[in-house]
């Protein structure tokens, strides 16, 4: 029934469009390629697609941590973090100024294998180490910069570096990289297109009529790149025949292409990437900072993050379908059945896909070693730091709301608790952050309130309430900007 209905819609639209096409768009001065371009416009979608992609990137949180007395969002995608940590094969991009990053995956069996992109073991060396802030503050104010410079001049090349392990748990149901779901998209989208037209075969057939004409008139079509042949460069009888034929084939392909795109949308495959954005993802980072005493105490930090939304691709089909479609050549009947499941889910969860609830949980443990920082300078007493540790738990919820016809407002609630031990300067505290982010064209403006049971450092402030307004926009631009 579906195939018949969709095909009928395609025919209806085609028949309505026919009078426009029948007028003919191709000119005698056109080339074969130029005539094709009048129907299959190569540039018509590029700008909108780029704009959409840019918009998605701008609205995508940048992966800033949910912590501190600042506005926070838990609707972050870990992909930017993975890209930074090299898990997506972009390890060259994370070299900050003053640091050098060394890939150590070769040291760990399994991580060194080609295609193993869900874990990264690396060393990060600070090439411009500085003395500890506590030591700098202890230096006499009038000579502080000079003395600090002398002390930093004594620091060796490996006085401040870190060993870092980043792991992203990605399998058939976890992670947000398209590559993990490519086979399932291939099966579903091909089945959707096939309900209206065997498009690849149609394109080959239409092309064959053009190549046949060229073959029959090869004494006239003399160039090696036949698509550059102008119709008006051919003898009149062949010229008209060629132009009408190419135009007819281009029109036919364009109509089928449109019908196929409508089928993709009808089956909900335009929402596929949004469902992937809601997939559960788990991320772990372990960071061991190794330092000379003058730079500060050594630290071990471990952070785990889990993010999830109920309206995700996992939920769009049964586990049986996920398994059956995640192969190179799935059974056609099974694919059609799974496509029906997928379509029902997307149609039944349209609001949830656009504005659904998202949750994030993360925990961070930081252990700071005891240390005695002795500058070896007269009048500067050694600074003794006790061993301390910190445990921070975050939980977040976010949702988008649409008011009228305006752009959606993003709502983020993040709660955080910091459990500090053995640090005389800090104390335990809870923080709650409520943030509303409104899009205005290319700029997003977050407004929020942050409540903390105490200030971060020991003071006589018991409770703290602050309001923040921010501005976020894409300042980077890219080469595609025109």
């Amino acid at each position, binding site marked *: 029934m579906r195939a018949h209905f969709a095909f009928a819609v395609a025919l209806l639209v085609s028949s309505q469009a026919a009078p426009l096409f029948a007028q003919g768009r191709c000119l005698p001065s056109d080339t074969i390629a130029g005539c*094709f371009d009048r129907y299959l416009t*190569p540039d018509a*979608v590029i700008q909108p697609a780029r704009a959409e992609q840019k918009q998605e990137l701008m609205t995508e949180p940048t992966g800033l941590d949910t912590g501190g007395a600042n506005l926070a969002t838990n609707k972050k995608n870990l992909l930017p973090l993975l890209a930074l940590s090299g898990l997506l094969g972009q390890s060259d991009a994370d070299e900050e100024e003053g640091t050098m990053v060394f890939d150590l995956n070769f040291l760990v069996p399994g991580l060194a294998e080609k295609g193993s992109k869900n874990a990264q073991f690396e060393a990060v060396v600070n090439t411009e180490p500085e003395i500890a802030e506590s030591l700098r503050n202890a230096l006499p104010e009038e000579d502080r910069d000079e003395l600090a410079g002398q002390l930093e001049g004594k620091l060796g090349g490996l006085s401040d570096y870190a060993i870092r392990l980043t792991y992203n748990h990605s399998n058939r149901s976890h992670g947000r990289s398209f590559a993990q779901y490519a086979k399932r*998209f291939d099966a579903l*989208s*091909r089945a959707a297109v096939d309900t209206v037209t065997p498009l*690849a075969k149609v394109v080959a057939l239409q092309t064959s009529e*053009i190549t046949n004409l060229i073959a029959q008139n090869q004494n006239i079509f003399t160039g090696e790149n036949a698509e550059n042949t102008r119709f008006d460069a051919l003898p009149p009888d062949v010229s008209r025949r060629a132009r009408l034929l190419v135009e007819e084939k281009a029109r036919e392909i364009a109509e089928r292409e449109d019908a196929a795109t409508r089928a993709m949308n009808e089956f909900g495959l335009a929402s596929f990437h949004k469902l992937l954005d809601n997939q559960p993802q788990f991320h772990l980072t372990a960071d061991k900072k190794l330092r000379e005493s003058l730079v500060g105490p050594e630290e071990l930090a471990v952070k785990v993050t889990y993010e999830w939304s109920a309206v995700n691709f996992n939920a769009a089909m049964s586990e049986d379908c996920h398994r059956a479609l995640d192969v190179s050549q799935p059974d056609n009947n099974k694919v059609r059945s799974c496509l029906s499941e997928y379509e029902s889910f997307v149609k039944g969860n349209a609001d949830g896909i656009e504005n659904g609830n998202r949750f994030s949980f993360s925990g961070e443990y930081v252990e700071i070693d005891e240390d005695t920082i002795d500058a070896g300078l007269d009048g500067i007493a050694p600074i003794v730091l006790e061993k301390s540790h910190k445990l921070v738990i975050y939980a977040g919820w976010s949702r988008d709301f649409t008011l009228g016809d305006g752009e959606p407002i993003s709502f983020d609630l993040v709660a955080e608790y910091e459990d500090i031990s053995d640090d005389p300067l800090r104390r335990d505290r809870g923080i709650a952050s409520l943030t509303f982010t409104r899009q205005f064209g290319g700029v997003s403006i977050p407004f929020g309130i942050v409540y903390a049971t105490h200030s971060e450092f020991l003071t006589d402030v018991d409770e703290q309430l602050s309001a923040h307004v921010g501005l976020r926009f894409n300042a980077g631009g890219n080469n595609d900007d025109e």
Partner: protein
Amino acid sequence: MSRIKIWNRVPDRSQLHVQVEGGEGAVDGFYMVSDGTTEEWSDGMLRAGQTRSLRTPNTYNVGLVLRFAGASTMTVKAHVEKPGGSHHGDDYEEPVTGAAGDVKAVAIGAVTLQS
């Protein structure tokens, strides 16, 4: 460039190479020769690249269908390599951009020397 490419006067025993790279989406293809030979090319086959020998006096036709899961660009690359190793005509490299849910077709043909 355009979404159609046709090589003409292709020497016998040349090789047609077709490959699709990048993008968030999937591709499939249909390969058709005037002698009646047909093949269906899957996403995996096209990502890996396909090579077929071209024999006179046949014509060769490939229909490619690019299906986009997200706003991205897939690049279609093709060329004809003559028996001596040099390339016949211009190489084809077309970046095809689409938004989520878009379907884009690309037509490739090769006409061998007819006599």
